[in-house]
């Protein structure tokens, strides 16, 4: 399947009605992205640039106003639970169910037969190092562990594609670093195709093969950075000069856009 994109975003444009009603807001414009099988891609940009919207268009959770997304050659017309798994900003673990049951419920929704759910759920819990916490409830886990459990749930769905919407946002700095390293190691074995929405320059560089930098609203692709580094990424990569160069380059690209986004907000306030 070399050369053929697993995810193809074809000239996507998306507008929505503003909260006050009549005004139409253009969120995304002229987005073209090809993502190869096994590639790890980050979408980064100022708040409100539409990167999360694009993730939801790819996942079939939002229908784009124009253009379309192809996964494996077929157009996305709604959620594709066999192809796509999500990791949300907050863990989205159901508080009334144990960690194990949380995973099993998603497997049930996906249509996995009852007999194999328990086994699949336990395997993925072991993969993220939470095998001892299957019978715990979400509120008994730390933020990092909850996000790990959410990762286990996403892995258990055995999809080719993993969409991550700021999965680190609710975690503290140190937990984020460790989680990034774990993620890189785990995903190197899984050969999944990943789209990550993030605000963090370091995470984007540390995890991605390619980074798409978005302009402030309406979101357009401003630049694409290649991170030519094998997976799994190891902690020393984070202190290398290559890492720093890429991070600084990303910062330069983003700085103007963030300023522009803040400026627009100020105008809106005035």
């Amino acid at each position, binding site marked *: 399947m070399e050369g053929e994109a697993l995810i193809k975003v074809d000239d996507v444009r998306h507008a929505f009605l503003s909260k006050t009603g009549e005004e139409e807001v253009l969120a995304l414009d002229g987005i073209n992205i090809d993502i190869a099988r096994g590639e790890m891609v980050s979408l980064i940009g100022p708040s409100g640039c539409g990167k999360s919207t694009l993730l939801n268009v790819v996942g079939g959770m939002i229908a784009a106003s124009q253009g379309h997304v192809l996964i494996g050659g077929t157009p996305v017309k709604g959620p594709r639970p066999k192809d796509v798994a*999500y990791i949300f900003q907050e863990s989205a673990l*159901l508080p009334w169910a144990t960690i194990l049951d949380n995973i099993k419920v998603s497997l049930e929704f*996906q249509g996995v037969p009852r007999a194999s759910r328990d086994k699949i759920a336990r395997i993925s819990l072991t993969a993220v190092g939470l095998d001892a916490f299957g019978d715990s409830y979400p509120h008994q886990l730390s933020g990092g562990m909850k996000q790990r459990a959410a990762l286990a749930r996403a892995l258990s769905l055995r999809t080719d594609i993993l969409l991550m919407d700021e999965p680190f946002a609710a975690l503290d700095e140190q937990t984020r670093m460790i989680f990034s390293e774990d993620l890189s190691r785990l995903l190197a074995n899984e050969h999944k195709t990943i789209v990550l929405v993030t605000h963090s320059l370091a995470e984007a560089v540390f995890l991605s093969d390619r980074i798409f930098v978005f302009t402030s609203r309406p979101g357009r692709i401003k630049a694409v950075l290649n991170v030519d580094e094998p997976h799994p990424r190891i902690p020393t990569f984070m202190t290398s000069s290559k890492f720093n160069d890429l991070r600084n380059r990303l910062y330069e690209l983003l700085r103007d856009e963030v300023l522009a986004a803040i400026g627009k907000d100020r105008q809106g306030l005035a």
Partner: protein
Amino acid sequence: MSGASSAGQALTLRLSKSQKRLSLLVKIGVLVALLAIWHLVTVDEFVSPFFLPKPDEVLRVFFNIIVTGQAWPDLKVTLFEFALAGPIAVIAGGAVGFLISLTRYGTRAFEPIVSSVYAIPIIIFYPVSVMALGIGPESKIAHGALFGFFPMCLSTIQGFSRVDPLYIRLAHSTGASKSQLFWRIMLPAAAPTILTGVRLGLMLSFLAIIGGETIASLEGIGHRIVWYAEGMQTGNMFAYIVFVIMVAVLMNTALSFLEIRRGRQ
């Protein structure tokens, strides 16, 4: 948001064990203090025994009522009325609340209406019930059902409409069917709020039935209290008052227990 609230939850769970004993002691203490005050104000007839009989007198009559089964005919009527009114309130309130919660428009339009009706004194409709259905149990059943309907309906609307949208997105992204979404996500997420509605609905339904019986009735516990009051038999009256309080407290305790157990899950 969820981080802070779950931390708070864990904290209360941890504290609850040592606090349970303390709160039980406080409850018993309040009860003993009330009895002591009651005893002190009546022992030297500081308050006339005609208005407030001595506690030992009331307790004697109370046990007499229980032992002889004297309260049974009235209790049977009241319980029969409640056995119909309570479930009607819960089922009708739950069904209407669920239908309203199905659309965002319905929630926006009807939630304020239901909650404002909840705020008006529904007792003013009791004469209408009596006029339409007579002075027998039917008017109490209708009144009790009406009283319990609104809190149940409101809690059901709130329970279903405030389900975290993230859970719904998760369900959609993993391919949940409509019935899976309802049984696996919506219902368990809304259950604690709905159970509060069940408790409130049943309690208010019971209160409304007792209240209705005191206003216009020929039988039932509420009627018996008024009957003894009009007959100047305050000992009997207070014994029945204690009886109603005991029934209400028992019911509330049983329903709270159900709510807490479900909430912990």
